């Protein structure tokens, strides 16, 4: 299991990196943390002709905040997110999800940008970004554009990025007052890809009515999806145990399109979806009650 040969570039600046990606087009792969790409290369499933290693582009590694947003450079490592106080304060859902992302020795290398651009439907962060309504800055030699998470994930490992484009920055709106977050997933073993997972971000109004109920789902379709039924049924209401259960069950019927694999049938995944959506919502709303 040794990778095929490739040409290797390790630029120091974003401009250099974008030039290289432009020059090599489809032949080039950006190397972020490499925790998915290099195993695929070792299996020789991936045989890119050119690797553009982003690990020396320091400008892509940053965590910053202003009053309304949290800004994350694409090469920020999972480990940094996990330990960052800014992340914990501004986007507690990210912190809640981090322990579920593989293992420490993977998180020390893996990056948020790599995970999002890879768009694995079983990954935690894409679903979290949907729940948080994050937006992504894509740069290329000809400029940059901002794409909301909801328009970024197009299918299995497929995103709105064009060849030559690079995900450079992630913007997450700061958590609202009276908001709560909860993450849960079912996996065969600790650290494995989830059989199903749910990331909830909820906001209540001063009147105790739910204003926002966004649940991002993973491993339940060919891409991360939002539980639209949950929002439709709960927003504007005072959620009860009953209504949460109904919303979760409804969402598990219409919002997802799970596939079967050797670990879980589509039927079983649907069951897990109903349970997990319910559990994260219960936890989130419960913590609001206690707050």
């Amino acid at each position: 299991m040794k990778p095929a040969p490739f040409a290797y570039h390790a630029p120091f600046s974003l401009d250099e990196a974008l030039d290289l990606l432009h020059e090599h087009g489809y032949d080039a792969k950006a190397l972020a943390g490499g925790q998915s790409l290099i195993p695929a290369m070792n299996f020789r499933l991936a045989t890119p002709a050119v690797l553009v290693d982003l690990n020396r582009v320091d400008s892509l590694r940053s965590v910053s905040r202003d009053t309304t947003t949290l800004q994350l450079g694409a090469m920020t490592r999972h480990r940094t997110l996990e330990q960052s106080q800014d992340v914990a304060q501004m986007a507690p859902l990210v912190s809640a999800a981090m322990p579920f992302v593989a293992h420490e020795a993977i998180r020390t290398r893996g990056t948020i940008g790599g995970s999002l651009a890879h768009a694995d439907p079983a990954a935690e962060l894409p679903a979290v970004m949907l729940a948080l309504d994050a937006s992504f800055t894509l740069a290329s030699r000809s400029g940059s554009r901002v794409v909301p998470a909801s328009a970024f994930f197009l299918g299995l490992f497929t995103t709105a990025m064009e060849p030559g484009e690079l995900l450079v920055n992630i913007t997450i709106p700061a958590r609202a007052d009276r908001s709560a977050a909860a993450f849960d997933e079912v996996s065969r073993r600790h650290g494995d890809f989830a059989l199903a997972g749910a990331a909830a971000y909820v906001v209540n109004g001063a009147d105790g009515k739910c204003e926002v109920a966004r649940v991002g789902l993973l491993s339940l379709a060919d891409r991360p999806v939002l539980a639209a039924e949950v929002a439709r049924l709960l927003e504007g209401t005072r959620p009860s145990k009953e209504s949460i259960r109904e919303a979760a069950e409804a969402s598990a019927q219409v919002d997802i399109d799970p596939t079967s694999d050797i670990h879980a049938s589509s039927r079983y995944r649907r069951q897990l979806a109903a349970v997990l959506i319910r559990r994260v919502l219960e936890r989130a709303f419960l913590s609001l009650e206690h707050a």
Partner: protein
Amino acid sequence: MPAEHRYLSARVTRNEDARLLTGRARFVDDVQVPGMLHAAFVRSDYAHARIVSIDTSAARARAGVVAVYAAADLGEYLTPAPLLVPPPPIPDVVFHARTHLPLARDKVRYVGEPLAIVIAESRYIAEDAVRDVLVDLDPLDPVVDLEAAMADGAPRVHEDLESNAAAKVVQTKGNYEAARQQADLIVRRRFLYDRGASAAIENRAIVAQWDTGAEELTIWDTTQAPIPIRNGMAARLGLLESQVRVVAPFVGGGFGPKIMMFYPEELVIPWVAIRLGRAVKWTEDRRENFYATTQERGQVHEAEMALTREGRILGVRDHFLFDTGAYDPYGLTIPINTQCTLLGPYDIANYDSRFTAVFTNKPIVTPVRGAGRQHGVFVSERLLDLAAKELGIDRVEIRRRNLLGPDRFPHNHGIMFQDSAPLVYDSGNYLPTLERAVEMIGYEQLRGEQARMRAEGRHVGVGVVCYVEGTGIGPYEGARVTVEPSGVVRVATGVGTQGQGHYTVFAQIVAEVLGVDVTNVKVVTGDTREFQWGTGTFASRGAAVAGSACHAAALSVRGKILKLASQLLSVPEDGLELKDARVEVNGSPERGLTLAELAGRANPLRGAVRPGSEPGLESTAYFGPDRGSTASGVHAVMVEVDPETAMVDIKRYVVVHDCGTMINPLLVEGQIHGGVAHGIGNAFYEQLVYDDQGQLLNASLMDYLLPTATDVPPIETDHRETPSPFNPVGLKGVGEAGCIPSGAAFAQAVEDAIGNPAFEILQIPMSPDLLFDLMTEARRG
């Protein structure tokens, strides 16, 4: 043995640890020889196909490639591997030996079967060149499912045979049909056990080096059987046994498949090294390991148990299919283990057991930790559980009623074991073991609390199962014990170590006999230059058989020491004592000689060695038990099942076991913990999933799930010691025990937790997906 042991039965830490903890221990893949070449194999992508052509020209032309060989290039060397274990002399046994070639010719019979070998300056280039080899395969319908394999008109793995039956064996005891007529209850079910991988963390590796000047071949090999490899390779290559040295240095876990001998790679690499006159290394990668290393566990049972209404077993009938894979070089060891282990610790007078071994287009099957024993335990323990339910008898109570009493040993079952000896239990005392396990898990209390927990929505269940395990079989092992002039005691034996602690347990046995510190006994093992008689590490036999040989050799050296000291000190032997690496005169400890002094005096530079004596303080001894010893035990588990997600949380795991005299309880516990973890893997996680084309769908550690530290609970152990009368120290094996009853224990506990009479677990492994389906079906009624 003296009643008070100093080193035996002590929790001694290991002699081998320092090297392993600092990265200095040498494993095969660590071997680097100047000018060494690297090998990679071209393997079949199809489970069953005719080989149309193999074109190696482009691969040969690649820069850095030294040679490429396919079957046609091997000439006369292309002969089948030997049959390692001929079937035991059971009446009317049918057995067809079909063994593999070094490289496939005409036909491939499993995904991963090697077709060609590429030799290059680096493994990277060798893997590049593997992709240059053009292989044209014409796919045939594959044989995957065991029952379909035996249907009329099924495609045949070996076309010269009439069917895919590799063997048929019938063993009976008493008269089951007659017993059945007397029964108040017959429980009958179909049981499945699926394939798993041994999954040692170290993959296999071989380095072969031909020394042209000395005409000597050295093979470093991750084998559990270095001596038979040496003998077999010498014969095959036309060399003297003394011209071949096989070294199995530190081996990173065996678990069975590294006892399989003459793997295709093992046959080819040395041949290539001689031909090229350069050292060649091949290290199996993890993906290859899922095809190229042998596997185990696929069986389908149709079984029934006949009982009285009091729950006494009248008899058992079990007919089963055993998946032997594409070839059967290891004979019938596994299914005979299944057949024999099914009887368990119970008094079963009537038994009708028959099996068919089935060729399939899947990798070769040879023993993996447990080696078929878990299947027998699963079938009999499940049948007992189902019977208990039907009869309204408590699960523990039905077991109590059927255990063999302590007065029943030795107990001859009247059928044949895998070692070609009758199945005789040497010793045992089963009831106290069961009662202790029941007490430790708090069985009665848990039963009482279950209803309350259920009312709180908690599904907690408990399982208690028994097993016996045939261990420590022959034919023999040997050991040489030498006191060096430095006073260091050297022990050489043929059984290699894969982590069991041979450097320590053999040292303990010898230290006990010679009165030296354990750290002062240096064990050399796994190198045919050091010791060249023996078979290998398998069937939980290392400690019992090689340990007994060490004991015998040490006793002989002890005799030599006392004799020489007696002469030198002019004190009768019975007036001497061995203590702290010294011989002392009883009553006047200041008078004495160190072992170092004695070793020097035993090998003088002048003078004469008297007739009838030998120089040095050294002895070689062999030990060959007539038959194996029988270990036993009880596992008790407590689980909680989340009925919504079907996920199982293992709350507690209790093991009470009896492996005879323990050399080192610390190491015994380690063996049990590892075995239980393997058993947890088998019960819940580990399944090699083949599709209907014989393609393995989880050939990586991403999808083949080994249990991790969060999947294995703390394991509570207790020991019972019923010494074996079959060897001088009273040893029984323990290496495999932990994984044998776990599937049965969990099946019982999960069923108990769900508590729906329609919910039955009849197969292993039980993934959450399977449990979800079973729960859904049971709810529907």
